[in-house]
Protein backbone atom coordinates (compact mmCIF):
# COMPACT_ATOMS: atom_id res chain seq x y z
CA UNK A 1 0.00 0.00 0.00
CA UNK A 2 1.26 3.48 -0.92
CA UNK A 3 1.90 5.45 2.23
CA UNK A 4 2.71 8.99 3.29
CA UNK A 5 6.03 7.72 4.66
CA UNK A 6 6.83 6.54 1.18
CA UNK A 7 5.96 9.97 -0.20
CA UNK A 8 8.30 11.58 2.34
CA UNK A 9 11.14 9.35 1.14
CA UNK A 10 10.30 10.22 -2.46
CA UNK A 11 10.40 13.90 -1.52
CA UNK A 12 13.91 13.60 -0.08
CA UNK A 13 15.20 11.71 -3.12
CA UNK A 14 13.49 14.16 -5.49
CA UNK A 15 15.23 17.07 -3.75
CA UNK A 16 18.60 15.54 -4.55
CA UNK A 17 17.59 14.99 -8.18
CA UNK A 18 16.30 18.54 -8.50
CA UNK A 19 19.54 19.89 -7.06
CA UNK A 20 21.52 17.86 -9.61
CA UNK A 21 19.47 19.24 -12.50
CA UNK A 22 19.94 22.79 -11.34
CA UNK A 23 22.10 24.93 -13.58
CA UNK A 24 22.06 22.39 -16.40
CA UNK A 25 21.01 23.65 -19.82
CA UNK A 26 17.44 24.50 -20.72
CA UNK A 27 15.53 21.42 -21.83
CA UNK A 28 13.00 20.36 -24.43
CA UNK A 29 9.36 21.35 -24.13
CA UNK A 30 6.59 18.97 -25.14
CA UNK A 31 3.29 20.78 -25.69
CA UNK A 32 0.08 18.73 -25.85
CA UNK A 33 -3.18 20.20 -27.18
CA UNK A 34 -5.82 19.76 -24.44
CA UNK A 35 -8.83 21.63 -25.85
CA UNK A 36 -12.10 19.76 -26.37
CA UNK A 37 -11.03 18.73 -29.89
CA UNK A 38 -7.73 17.34 -28.61
CA UNK A 39 -9.26 15.47 -25.67
CA UNK A 40 -12.00 13.97 -27.87
CA UNK A 41 -9.38 12.81 -30.38
CA UNK A 42 -7.28 11.05 -27.71
CA UNK A 43 -4.90 13.58 -26.14
CA UNK A 44 -5.07 11.99 -22.67
CA UNK A 45 -3.41 8.64 -23.50
CA UNK A 46 -0.86 10.51 -25.64
CA UNK A 47 0.03 12.79 -22.75
CA UNK A 48 0.22 9.94 -20.27
CA UNK A 49 2.43 7.93 -22.68
CA UNK A 50 4.89 10.85 -22.96
CA UNK A 51 4.98 11.26 -19.19
CA UNK A 52 5.52 7.54 -18.58
CA UNK A 53 8.19 7.10 -21.23
CA UNK A 54 10.15 10.11 -20.00
CA UNK A 55 10.00 8.79 -16.44
CA UNK A 56 10.93 5.26 -17.52
CA UNK A 57 14.00 6.46 -19.38
CA UNK A 58 14.87 8.85 -16.59
CA UNK A 59 15.15 11.74 -19.05
CA UNK A 60 15.90 14.99 -17.24
CA UNK A 61 15.00 18.55 -18.16
CA UNK A 62 11.99 17.81 -20.34
CA UNK A 63 8.85 19.73 -19.51
CA UNK A 64 5.40 18.57 -20.57
CA UNK A 65 2.80 21.32 -20.78
CA UNK A 66 -0.64 21.82 -22.28
CA UNK A 67 -2.10 24.25 -24.76
CA UNK A 68 -5.57 25.02 -26.12
CA UNK A 69 -6.97 24.60 -29.61
CA UNK A 70 -4.47 25.73 -32.23
CA UNK A 71 -6.98 25.65 -35.07
CA UNK A 72 -6.05 22.36 -36.72
CA UNK A 73 -8.66 20.18 -35.05
CA UNK A 74 -8.59 17.60 -37.86
CA UNK A 75 -5.00 16.73 -36.88
CA UNK A 76 -5.62 16.32 -33.14
CA UNK A 77 -4.12 14.91 -30.99
CA UNK A 78 -1.42 17.45 -31.77
CA UNK A 79 1.92 17.59 -29.97
CA UNK A 80 4.60 20.23 -30.46
CA UNK A 81 8.21 19.53 -29.59
CA UNK A 82 10.38 22.56 -28.89
CA UNK A 83 14.03 21.68 -28.49
CA UNK A 84 16.35 24.57 -27.60
CA UNK A 85 18.04 25.99 -30.70
CA UNK A 86 15.90 23.87 -33.05
CA UNK A 87 12.85 24.69 -35.08
CA UNK A 88 9.50 23.66 -33.58
CA UNK A 89 8.23 20.28 -34.79
CA UNK A 90 4.44 19.77 -34.87
CA UNK A 91 3.14 16.21 -34.77
CA UNK A 92 -0.45 15.31 -35.65
CA UNK A 93 -2.83 12.34 -35.29
CA UNK A 94 -0.74 11.13 -32.38
CA UNK A 95 -1.37 8.04 -30.30
CA UNK A 96 0.42 6.41 -27.35
CA UNK A 97 2.65 4.26 -29.58
CA UNK A 98 3.73 7.21 -31.70
CA UNK A 99 4.47 9.13 -28.50
CA UNK A 100 6.94 6.44 -27.41
CA UNK A 101 8.65 6.62 -30.81
CA UNK A 102 8.88 10.43 -30.62
CA UNK A 103 10.57 10.11 -27.20
CA UNK A 104 13.16 7.59 -28.43
CA UNK A 105 13.87 9.09 -31.86
CA UNK A 106 13.34 12.80 -31.33
CA UNK A 107 13.78 13.59 -27.63
CA UNK A 108 16.59 11.11 -26.94
CA UNK A 109 18.36 10.92 -30.30
CA UNK A 110 17.49 14.29 -31.79
CA UNK A 111 15.89 12.91 -34.96
CA UNK A 112 12.34 14.21 -35.53
CA UNK A 113 9.96 11.52 -36.84
CA UNK A 114 9.11 13.08 -40.22
CA UNK A 115 6.22 10.74 -41.03
CA UNK A 116 4.21 11.86 -37.97
CA UNK A 117 4.54 15.60 -38.61
CA UNK A 118 1.54 17.71 -39.61
CA UNK A 119 3.60 18.96 -42.56
CA UNK A 120 3.86 15.40 -43.85
CA UNK A 121 0.20 14.58 -43.04
CA UNK A 122 -0.94 17.56 -45.10
CA UNK A 123 0.80 16.27 -48.24
Amino acid at each position, binding site marked *: *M*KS*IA*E*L*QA*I*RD*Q*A*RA*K*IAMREGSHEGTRIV*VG*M*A*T*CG*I*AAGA*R*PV*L*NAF*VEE*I*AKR*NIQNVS*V*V*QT*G*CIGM*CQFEPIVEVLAPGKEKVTYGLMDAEKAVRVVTDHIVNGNPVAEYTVAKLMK
Partner: protein
Amino acid sequence: MRELSLNVLDIAQNSISAGASLVTLSVCEDTANDWLTLTIADNGRGMTPEQLDRVRDPFYTTRTTRKVGMGIPLFRMAAEMAGGGLTIESVVGVGTTVTATFCLSHIDRMPLGDMAGTVSALIRLNPQLDFLYRHEVDGNVFELDTRALREVLEDVPLCEPDVMEWINGTLAEGLLPLNSQA
Protein backbone atom coordinates in the same frame (compact mmCIF):
# COMPACT_ATOMS: atom_id res chain seq x y z
CA MET B 1 -16.34 11.59 -26.23
CA ARG B 2 -16.10 7.85 -25.70
CA GLU B 3 -15.70 8.07 -21.92
CA LEU B 4 -17.32 10.36 -19.36
CA SER B 5 -13.91 10.73 -17.71
CA LEU B 6 -12.83 12.57 -20.88
CA ASN B 7 -15.74 15.00 -20.49
CA VAL B 8 -14.59 15.54 -16.89
CA LEU B 9 -11.06 16.29 -18.12
CA ASP B 10 -12.47 18.74 -20.67
CA ILE B 11 -14.82 20.52 -18.25
CA ALA B 12 -11.94 20.83 -15.76
CA GLN B 13 -10.04 22.67 -18.50
CA ASN B 14 -12.73 25.38 -18.34
CA SER B 15 -12.01 25.72 -14.62
CA ILE B 16 -8.30 26.05 -15.31
CA SER B 17 -8.98 28.68 -18.02
CA ALA B 18 -11.13 30.54 -15.47
CA GLY B 19 -8.09 30.92 -13.21
CA ALA B 20 -9.15 28.44 -10.53
CA SER B 21 -6.61 27.49 -7.86
CA LEU B 22 -8.68 24.53 -6.63
CA VAL B 23 -10.71 22.17 -8.79
CA THR B 24 -12.88 19.53 -7.15
CA LEU B 25 -13.79 16.46 -9.20
CA SER B 26 -16.38 14.24 -7.70
CA VAL B 27 -17.90 10.98 -8.85
CA CYS B 28 -20.82 9.48 -6.96
CA GLU B 29 -22.26 6.11 -7.90
CA ASP B 30 -25.50 5.15 -6.21
CA THR B 31 -26.54 1.74 -7.45
CA ALA B 32 -29.62 1.48 -5.21
CA ASN B 33 -31.11 4.52 -6.92
CA ASP B 34 -29.43 3.69 -10.27
CA TRP B 35 -27.81 7.12 -10.40
CA LEU B 36 -24.38 8.48 -11.34
CA THR B 37 -23.47 12.08 -10.49
CA LEU B 38 -20.35 13.84 -11.79
CA THR B 39 -19.42 17.22 -10.37
CA ILE B 40 -16.67 19.62 -11.42
CA ALA B 41 -16.42 22.59 -9.06
CA ASP B 42 -13.90 25.43 -9.07
CA ASN B 43 -13.03 28.68 -7.35
CA GLY B 44 -12.30 30.47 -10.61
CA ARG B 45 -13.62 33.80 -11.82
CA GLY B 46 -17.17 32.56 -12.37
CA MET B 47 -19.76 33.87 -14.81
CA THR B 48 -22.28 36.70 -14.75
CA PRO B 49 -25.97 35.73 -14.98
CA GLU B 50 -25.93 36.86 -18.64
CA GLN B 51 -22.89 34.69 -19.47
CA LEU B 52 -24.50 31.83 -17.63
CA ASP B 53 -27.73 32.15 -19.62
CA ARG B 54 -25.77 31.94 -22.83
CA VAL B 55 -23.74 28.94 -21.73
CA ARG B 56 -26.86 27.17 -20.47
CA ASP B 57 -28.67 27.65 -23.79
CA PRO B 58 -27.63 24.69 -25.91
CA PHE B 59 -28.45 26.57 -29.13
CA TYR B 60 -26.58 29.71 -28.32
CA THR B 61 -23.46 30.46 -30.28
CA THR B 62 -21.28 33.56 -30.41
CA ARG B 63 -19.81 32.20 -33.57
CA THR B 64 -18.40 34.92 -35.76
CA THR B 65 -15.02 33.69 -36.84
CA ARG B 66 -14.24 31.83 -33.65
CA LYS B 67 -15.34 28.23 -33.28
CA VAL B 68 -18.33 27.33 -31.11
CA GLY B 69 -17.69 26.16 -27.57
CA MET B 70 -18.26 22.42 -27.55
CA GLY B 71 -17.31 21.25 -24.10
CA ILE B 72 -20.48 21.98 -22.13
CA PRO B 73 -22.91 21.03 -24.96
CA LEU B 74 -21.16 17.66 -25.36
CA PHE B 75 -21.33 16.95 -21.63
CA ARG B 76 -24.99 17.99 -21.53
CA MET B 77 -25.77 15.71 -24.46
CA ALA B 78 -24.05 12.74 -22.79
CA ALA B 79 -26.15 13.29 -19.64
CA GLU B 80 -29.47 13.83 -21.43
CA MET B 81 -28.91 10.79 -23.63
CA ALA B 82 -28.63 8.72 -20.45
CA GLY B 83 -31.82 10.00 -18.84
CA GLY B 84 -30.07 12.64 -16.77
CA GLY B 85 -29.22 16.29 -17.15
CA LEU B 86 -26.68 19.03 -16.60
CA THR B 87 -26.78 22.05 -14.33
CA ILE B 88 -24.34 24.93 -13.98
CA GLU B 89 -24.15 27.23 -11.02
CA SER B 90 -21.77 30.14 -11.08
CA VAL B 91 -21.08 33.29 -9.10
CA VAL B 92 -18.66 35.94 -10.27
CA GLY B 93 -15.57 35.98 -8.11
CA VAL B 94 -16.61 32.83 -6.27
CA GLY B 95 -16.58 29.99 -8.76
CA THR B 96 -18.51 27.58 -10.89
CA THR B 97 -20.03 24.16 -10.31
CA VAL B 98 -21.05 21.90 -13.17
CA THR B 99 -23.13 18.87 -12.22
CA ALA B 100 -24.12 16.10 -14.61
CA THR B 101 -26.41 13.23 -13.72
CA PHE B 102 -26.85 9.91 -15.48
CA CYS B 103 -29.09 6.91 -15.11
CA LEU B 104 -26.47 4.22 -14.35
CA SER B 105 -28.21 1.39 -16.16
CA HIS B 106 -29.30 3.46 -19.17
CA ILE B 107 -28.27 1.76 -22.39
CA ASP B 108 -27.01 5.04 -23.87
CA ARG B 109 -24.86 5.96 -20.87
CA MET B 110 -21.22 6.25 -21.84
CA PRO B 111 -18.82 4.34 -19.58
CA LEU B 112 -17.03 6.41 -16.95
CA GLY B 113 -13.68 5.11 -18.22
CA ASP B 114 -10.27 5.98 -16.87
CA MET B 115 -10.86 8.53 -14.09
CA ALA B 116 -7.38 7.87 -12.71
CA GLY B 117 -5.96 8.84 -16.12
CA THR B 118 -7.95 12.08 -16.04
CA VAL B 119 -6.85 13.01 -12.51
CA SER B 120 -3.24 12.09 -13.24
CA ALA B 121 -3.18 14.18 -16.44
CA LEU B 122 -4.66 17.21 -14.66
CA ILE B 123 -2.14 17.08 -11.82
CA ARG B 124 0.80 16.44 -14.14
CA LEU B 125 -0.08 19.39 -16.40
CA ASN B 126 -1.03 21.80 -13.62
CA PRO B 127 1.28 21.12 -10.68
CA GLN B 128 0.75 24.67 -9.38
CA LEU B 129 -3.01 24.06 -8.93
CA ASP B 130 -4.81 21.94 -6.38
CA PHE B 131 -7.16 19.11 -7.19
CA LEU B 132 -9.51 17.27 -4.90
CA TYR B 133 -10.78 14.01 -6.33
CA ARG B 134 -13.56 12.25 -4.48
CA HIS B 135 -15.04 8.99 -5.71
CA GLU B 136 -17.93 7.39 -3.87
CA VAL B 137 -19.53 4.05 -4.67
CA ASP B 138 -22.53 3.17 -2.47
CA GLY B 139 -21.09 4.89 0.58
CA ASN B 140 -17.48 3.76 0.14
CA VAL B 141 -15.22 6.71 -0.53
CA PHE B 142 -11.78 7.25 -2.01
CA GLU B 143 -10.25 10.71 -1.82
CA LEU B 144 -7.07 12.27 -3.14
CA ASP B 145 -6.31 15.87 -2.16
CA THR B 146 -3.19 17.50 -3.60
CA ARG B 147 -3.24 20.05 -0.76
CA ALA B 148 -2.45 17.26 1.70
CA LEU B 149 0.29 15.91 -0.61
CA ARG B 150 1.76 19.38 -1.00
CA GLU B 151 2.15 19.62 2.78
CA VAL B 152 4.27 16.47 2.75
CA LEU B 153 6.19 17.44 -0.38
CA GLU B 154 7.02 20.96 0.82
CA ASP B 155 9.19 22.48 -1.97
CA VAL B 156 9.09 19.40 -4.25
CA PRO B 157 6.61 19.86 -7.11
CA LEU B 158 3.75 17.42 -7.71
CA CYS B 159 4.89 16.85 -11.29
CA GLU B 160 8.20 15.21 -10.28
CA PRO B 161 8.26 11.79 -11.99
CA ASP B 162 8.62 9.81 -8.74
CA VAL B 163 5.82 11.79 -7.14
CA MET B 164 3.55 11.18 -10.15
CA GLU B 165 4.34 7.49 -9.93
CA TRP B 166 3.26 7.52 -6.27
CA ILE B 167 0.09 9.41 -7.18
CA ASN B 168 -0.74 6.97 -9.99
CA GLY B 169 -0.17 4.03 -7.67
CA THR B 170 -2.35 5.60 -4.98
CA LEU B 171 -5.15 6.21 -7.48
CA ALA B 172 -5.00 2.62 -8.73
CA GLU B 173 -4.90 1.12 -5.24
CA GLY B 174 -7.58 3.43 -3.90
CA LEU B 175 -10.05 2.90 -6.72
CA LEU B 176 -9.74 -0.88 -6.96
CA PRO B 177 -11.66 -1.75 -3.75
CA LEU B 178 -14.47 0.65 -4.71
CA ASN B 179 -15.31 -1.84 -7.44
CA SER B 180 -16.86 0.84 -9.62
CA GLN B 181 -19.46 -0.46 -12.05
CA ALA B 182 -19.65 2.80 -13.97
